[in-house]
C-alpha cells in the first residue's frame, strides 16, 4: 500500500555568483510521503521542475558525506533528513547551502578551507624513522587502545559540524570541529610517534578558540561528538605542552583560582590569564564594569569547608599551582 502523500512546500536557495547579483529562494511544492528524504525531494525538483538546480550528492545512504546542507537552519545530511518531521515542525522546508563556505552555485559550496584545515593537522600516522612500523606484518592494538578512539573513526567528513560551528563562522583561525576530532584520533593512536609535537603545535593554531557550545556534537550525523574530543585534546595539550596560550592559561588559572576560596576570584582570574601588556589593555573595560559592579574587585571569602576542597585538590591535582 502506498503511503499517503501530502503537499510539501520547499524554499530553495539559488545563487550563481557568475550571473546573479544576489541570492534568491525558489518555491516548489511537491506531493511527498512523510518518510521521503530531503535529497530525494531535491532530485525530484531537479528532474521534474528545474534541471539547473545544483547540489552535491552521491551514496544516498549517509555514508559518503556529500549532501550536507542547511535544512530549516540546521546543518545536516539531506539523505538522512525526512520531509515529514520537518513539515510538522516548520510547515515548510527551507534549503540553504552550508555556512562559513563560499557558494559556488546554489547548494554547492567551496570546501577548500575545510579540507585545508583537515590537511593541516596531518591526518596520517607519523612514525619514528628510528622505530619504523613493521612491514608485511600486522601492527595490532589492544581493545583498550581502540577504545580510546571513542567515536572519532565514524567521521565521514561531511562538514556539517564545520557549518554549524560559531567559532568557524567568526574566526578563520579556528580549525573547526572535524579537523580537531581527527587530530584527537591521531593523538591517541598508539602507532603514531608524533603525539607531543601535535599537541604542542595545535595550541597556538586555534585549539583554544573552541567555544564548547556543543553545536558540532548536535549537528554530527554520525555521533562523532567532536566537542567532547576537543575537550579531551585540551586536557592532553595542557599535560603535554603546558600553558603557552591565553586559553590554556585561563583554564589552568581557573582551576588554580578556585582552590583558594572554593569560589572564583574574578579579578585574580584576569591576572592569571593575561600577560602584563594584555592585562593593561583590560583596565579601561574593567573600570567601566567595576563602576556598576564593584564586587568585581572584591576578594571572595573562603567557603565553609574549604579544607575539603583543598583535600580534593591535593588528591587529584597534586601538581597544581595553588
Amino acid at each position: 500500500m502506498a503511503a499517503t502523500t501530502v503537499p510539501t512546500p520547499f524554499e530553495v536557495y539559488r545563487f550563481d555568483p557568475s550571473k546573479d547579483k544576489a541570492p534568491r529562494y525558489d518555491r516548489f511544492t511537491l506531493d511527498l510521503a512523510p518518510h521521503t528524504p530531503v535529497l530525494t525531494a531535491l532530485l525530484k525538483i531537479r528532474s521534474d521542475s528545474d534541471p539547473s538546480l545544483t547540489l552535491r550528492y552521491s551514496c544516498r545512504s549517509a555514508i559518503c558525506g556529500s549532501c550536507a546542507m542547511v535544512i530549516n537552519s540546521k546543518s545536516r545530511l539531506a539523505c538522512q533528513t525526512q520531509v515529514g518531521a520537518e513539515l510538522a515542525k516548520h510547515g515548510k522546508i527551507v534549503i540553504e547551502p552550508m555556512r562559513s563556505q563560499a557558494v559556488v552555485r546554489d547548494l554547492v559550496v567551496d570546501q577548500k578551507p575545510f579540507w585545508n584545515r583537515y590537511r593541516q593537522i596531518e591526518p596520517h600516522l607519523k612514525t619514528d624513522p628510528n622505530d619504523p612500523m613493521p612491514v608485511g606484518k600486522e601492527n595490532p592494538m589492544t581493545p583498550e587502545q581502540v577504545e580510546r578512539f571513542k567515536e572519532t573513526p565514524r567521521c565521514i567528513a561531511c562538514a556539517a559540524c564545520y557549518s554549524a560551528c560559531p567559532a568557524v563562522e567568526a574566526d578563520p583561525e579556528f580549525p573547526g570541529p572535524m579537523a580537531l576530532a581527527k587530530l584527537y584520533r591521531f593523538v591517541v593512536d598508539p602507532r603514531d610517534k608524533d603525539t607531543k609535537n601535535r599537541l604542542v603545535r595545535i595550541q597556538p593554531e586555534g585549539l583554544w578558540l573552541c567555544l564548547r557550545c556543543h553545536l558540532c556534537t548536535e549537528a554530527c550525523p554520525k555521533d562523532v561528538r567532536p566537542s567532547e574530543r576537543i575537550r579531551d585534546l585540551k586536557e592532553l595539550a595542557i599535560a603535554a605542552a603546558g600553558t603557552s596560550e591565553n586559553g590554556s592559561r585561563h583554564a589552568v588559572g581557573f582551576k588554580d583560582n578556585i582552590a583558594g576560596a572554593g569560589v572564583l576570584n574574578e579579578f585574580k582570574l584576569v591576572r592569571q590569564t593575561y600577560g602584563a601588556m594584555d592585562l593593561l589593555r583590560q583596565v579601561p573595560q574593567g573600570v567601566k564594569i567595576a563602576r556598576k559592579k564593584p564586587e568585581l574587585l572584591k576578594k571572595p571569602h573562603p567557603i565553609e569547608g574549604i579544607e575539603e576542597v583543598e583535600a580534593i585538590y591535593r588528591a587529584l591535582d597534586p601538581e597544581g599551582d595553588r
Partner: protein
Amino acid sequence: MKFAYYPGCVAQESGKELDMATRWVCRHLGIELVEFPKFSCCGSGFVDEANSILNVALNARNLALAESAGLDLMTICSTCQGMLTLANRRLEEPPVKAKVDSVLAPLGIRYSGKTKVTHLLSILTQQVGAEQLKKRVVRPLTGLKVGAFYGCHLLRPQAEMRSESAEEPHSFEDLIAAIGATPVFYRGRVMCCGFPILFVKEPTANRIAARQIDDAKAHGADAMATPCPLCHISLDSFQNKAEHEAGHALQMPVFHLPQLVGLALGATAEELGLPRHLVSTDAALAKVAQVAVPT
C-alpha cells in the same frame, strides 16, 4: 517547593543582580531556597578542560551536600546547570565513580547519585507552571518583544543534559508569553554568546556576541533575556566591545531571566538590580511602565 540554592560564583559577585532578582521572585512565588555556605564553584567548563576528574569530584561534593539534606538542587546559571549535570552523568561510569569515591570517602562525603539538578527556568515552567505564573502577574509585559537566549550548557550536549529539544527549545519562550511579553524566535537564541573565549581572543568573542544581538534585533526584539550570567557578561557587560567589532550601535537591553519575571510580578527596577547593567534597560522599561502596578 524547597530547593538547595546553588547561586554560582558570578551571581554572588559581579552578577549580584541575578541573585537579588532570584530571591525576590522565589519569595513571591513561595519557592523556599535553602542556603549552602559550603557549595564550591562548578568549574565553569574551564576546570573540566584543565582536569576533568577534579571537576567531577568537586561537583560530586556539591551534589552530596544537597543529597545529605534531602533536597534537589536549583541552579540559576546555564553553565552551573551544565557542569553539575555533567558530573551526575560522569558518575554513572563505574571507574569515574570509584575514583571520586576514593577521594571523597576519607573526607566523610558520600554521594549516591540522587540529587536532581534543575535550573530556575524549568522550575518556573514545569513546577510552578505557566497558569500559576499568569495568575501572579501584576504588570503584564504587554508589547515588549523579548528574544530568549538560552546559553549552550542548558541545552547541550542533549544526550547528557537530557534537556528539552536542543535545536528548538520553547520553554523560555513559553515563559516570556506567560508574563505577557511577546517571544521573538531567531537562530541566535540557541547559539553561543562567545563567553568561553572572552579571555582567549576577545575580538572573536565580541563578534560572536554581536552576531546574536544583531540577529535578535533583526527579528524585532526590544530586549533579550538569558538564564545564564556568563551570557549576560558577554551580551551586556561587553556589549560596547561587541558594538566596536560590529561597527554599529547595538543598544540591546539584556535581562537576567528572574529580572524579567520579577518585573511582571511587580518588583521595582532597584529590587531587581537593573541599574547595575552596563546597557540601560530604560527603553525596555518604558515599554511596560505604562501599566500601573497595583499596591
